């Protein structure tokens, strides 16, 4: 499942590498896909947004640990699950 992670671009120059490093330290976490939502955008409120694909099951321990590791990281501003939008 995809989660959205925002990394403070003032704290790290390479948000993708930073998130990979954080998740790499989580026991049991498998290979993840990390992608910048707006590649190379370093200024503005939408800079540092990443789409992170965690291959593990959303209810699994590995998933919980991965999300917790990201939330505990000082360079990570927030971690959000998908917020679907629907027509009103």
């Amino acid at each position, binding site marked *: 499942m*995809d989660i*959205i992670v*925002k990394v403070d671009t003032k704290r790290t120059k390479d948000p993708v590498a930073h998130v990979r490093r954080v998740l790499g330290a989580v026991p049991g976490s498998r290979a993840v896909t990390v*992608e910048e*939502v*707006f590649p190379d955008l370093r200024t*503005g*409120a*939408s800079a540092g*947004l990443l*789409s992170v694909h965690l291959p593990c099951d959303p209810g699994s321990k590995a998933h919980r640990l991965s999300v917790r590791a990201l939330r505990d990281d000082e360079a990570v501003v*927030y971690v*959000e699950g*998908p*917020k*679907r*939008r*629907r*027509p*009103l």
Partner: protein
Amino acid sequence: MATPSPRFHLWETSRKTKDRQTRTVIAKLKRDPRGPTGAALAAGAARGARGARILGDDAGSRLARILENGYAVSIEPVFDPSAPMRGARGPLRDLAAGAAGGRAPLGRATRSEGLVEIRVGPGTDPKTLARHLAGMGDVEYAFLPPVRHLFGTRTKTTRPDPLSSRQWAHGAIRLGHARAARGFNDASGITVAVVDSGIDTGHPDLKAAIKEYRNVLAGEGDRDDIGHGTHVAGIIAAGFRNGLGISGVCAARILALKALPHDDDHWSAKAYYRALRYVIGRAHVLNLSLGGDKDPAEIDILRDVIDSGVVVVAAMGNEYEDGNPVEYPAAMPTVCAVGATDQLDHRASFSNTGRHIDVVAPGVQILSTTPTHKYDEPERNYAAWDGTSMAAPHVAAAAALVLAKYPGSTPAQVIARLTSSADRVAGKKKGDRGYGAGRLNCQAALA
């Protein structure tokens, strides 16, 4: 009373000449049975002083002096003497006879004989010249020919939209009054982005308004299979007086972005975010007839969008009777949150309420465009739908009209104009959080 000196008189008043004044004087020369006829005088005068002297007439000589002194550029008989009318006699006959080598034309005389057209020279006041000519003994009258206007009106090249009478919302938001006001700008230079379920690019009432269409969803076709985006876009910018269906609130161009999938599995937050940010530098207004839970990433992106000068308008939501949840992005403070009203200016029963509501607009039985192809609903081409999704595009289009009239306004200024001019409607009570500032009033917003 003595005739004033022509030279002084004409020069003195020449400064009063107006650019649009006719530069021609028509004079009728008197018939004199003993001397040369008026037309002969005119012909002589037209040849200059020498010609007039040859004719040996003072009047001809005076006319010729007007020509020679530059007060007139030319003096010509009104009726071509080489093609005399049947029965011409008197001056015209003489003139024609001269032109035709002495052969007098046949036929009757007319009252129009002796008419000459004097083209007034630069720096000479035509009125003064006419007065001067009228004072000459040999001139029956002289005047500035009045301009004749065409009373017929050009046939209109536009045709009324046959379903426009069913668009009650336009009356409610005073759109007709706004359009009739002096200086109305239809916002054709404004782009409104619609991030939604797509758009039917082949809809005849919409296709002229579509500036760009992008499908940001991978794994889903370009068609609007829900019809929602097509309906929203039609409310904003369906062709006005194109003889088809309905008309939009404005003539803005539509930047349509398909980000709401038909199949839930195709939802992509990343694609949605990219669609939101895509409008920066490409649109002036962003309509979001969508909603859901609070999303900090969406807030961050919309913050950038608004900082870039885009007015963001969002629907309040339709779940008032299902717990009245707070919907985002409408609840974002810098977004214009729009609720729905019905034909009686009452809040629609489904329209969410809340502190963050800015304004309300019609959202019940709103007739607009629907896909011409097969989609989720049965009604093709046009249909009337309910929803705050239908209210928001009225406000988005009004924002486009405001931006067209007041270019350079910030999003906050546009929203302030829309809310401060809104009508306090009958249903609104003190402390009521269902109406915001009131119901949209385009006429007042553009005043």
